[in-house]
């Protein structure tokens, strides 16, 4: 279909993003299953309780590695500048599609940058809290973590999950149904010139 237009993401960027996204979704759903008896049935899609429990931390490792890759690839574009601060002040206009009152954005708008930085912090939180829960007997001479440490880390892990889950809902909503034409950027990598002008006027012109 849209094989014309502007290249927004390279093949590597798209692959890395899908590994991050799908692993995150897997972790979110199995994590919710472990936290809520009424959602335990979600483990069925991961091969049942024991398999889901075995997979969750390993998928967490895949998530962490791919997240680091994504972080390094996008870091340069994610620096927050004065234009972003102006954009953030207008965020309530953005939320109701009042385009005229929102300053034009670069390759990423300030909301996307905030999402990037929040997920970076949460990514660290998942890993730091997940490891002691995963290996309570200790690792590399650190530990054991049985008792208080594990219980506090469970709380941190859960809070980070709800935070990440809420951001994910906004991210997926905006990237799919709210802004038609956006998902293509992550599928075949291209967007139309009109799309770029509308959402990221300071990018590509």
């Amino acid at each position, binding site marked *: 279909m849209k094989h014309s237009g502007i290249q927004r993401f390279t093949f590597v960027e798209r692959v890395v993003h899908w590994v991050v996204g799908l692993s995150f979704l897997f972790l979110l759903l199995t994590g*919710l299953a472990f936290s809520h008896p*009424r959602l*335990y049935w979600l483990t069925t899609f991961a091969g049942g309780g*024991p398999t889901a429990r075995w997979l969750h931390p390993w998928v967490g490792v895949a998530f962490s590695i791919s997240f680091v890759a994504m972080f390094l690839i996008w870091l340069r574009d994610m620096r927050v500048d004065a234009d972003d601060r102006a954009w953030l002040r207008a965020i309530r206009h953005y939320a109701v599609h009042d385009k005229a009152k929102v300053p034009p954005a670069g390759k990423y708008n300030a909301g996307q940058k905030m999402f990037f930085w929040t997920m970076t912090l949460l990514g660290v939180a998942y890993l730091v809290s997940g490891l002691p829960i995963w290996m309570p007997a200790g690792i590399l001479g650190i530990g054991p973590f*049985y008792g208080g440490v594990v219980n506090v880390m*469970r709380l941190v892990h859960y809070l980070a999950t709800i935070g990440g889950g809420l951001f994910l*809902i906004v991210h997926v909503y905006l990237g799919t149904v709210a802004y038609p034409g956006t998902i293509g950027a992550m599928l075949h990598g291209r967007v139309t010139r009109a799309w770029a002008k509308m959402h990221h006027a300071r990018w590509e012109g």
Partner: protein
Amino acid sequence: MSAQLPANGLRIRRASASATPAPGIREGPEYAKLVDISRCIGCKGCEVACKEWNELGIEPTANFGSYQSHQDLGPNTWLLMRFTESEVDGQLNWLIKKDACLHCEEPGCLLACPAPGAIVQYENGIVDFNQANCIGCQLCVSGCPFDIPRFSTETRKVYKCNMCIDRVEAGLEPACAKTCPTNAIAWGTKEDMVRLAEQKVEGLRARGLANAMLYDPPGVGGTHMMYVVPHGDQLEQYDLPADPTAGAGALALLGTVRKLGASALGLGILAAGLHYLGFGPQAPEEDGK
């Protein structure tokens, strides 16, 4: 509640990670085991009886300078007699503790467990692990205030004393109580055992052990294995927490946050839907339809 409960599910009072009430409907007495430490001669006959009845197999061990058989409990060592030497008023004191699950009335293990029906409590108070439902996360170990459950790296499940539930169901006492040559382990209803303990404590005090006490900690709702401790002022030497609690602190907070967590995500999805209905999609103009 998961479908895979033990056959005697009708006696289940409480099950881990359960969104619906447990099926327990039968009424019966609550049982308790009373371990009178002052009568224990350290013969470890109970350890052997436990292994034998539960068919737990031999766990090789080595002499490590103690009378104790093994360093620690294990997935197939559900009972360990621990020996501690301590000094009291310049006198050597040889403390013996029968280390095994205390079968808490409020079991921290059960409250910490994320797998439906992997930990159950029967109406007689016995706390049992149902390995068929266990997902091997070991969160029960961190939930237990007494550091009892042990993980098997081979089966990836946790194990602990089940108070010989198969014997108790048949009207017998647990194997350790049956075998004890000095009657240091008594078995009966919780009521009777508390009464017996009070008599024993009184007797010990009359003999000059002023700090003798019954260990039945209220922070976990009391236990179904209680100790008569001759030196109640030395609980930490026995590795018995003075005031254990179950499901408190971070776990209690986790329980509260969870009540809001999933609803927050549900509301998030709802909000996105409403936003779409209210403001619609924003397509670039010349994109064509």
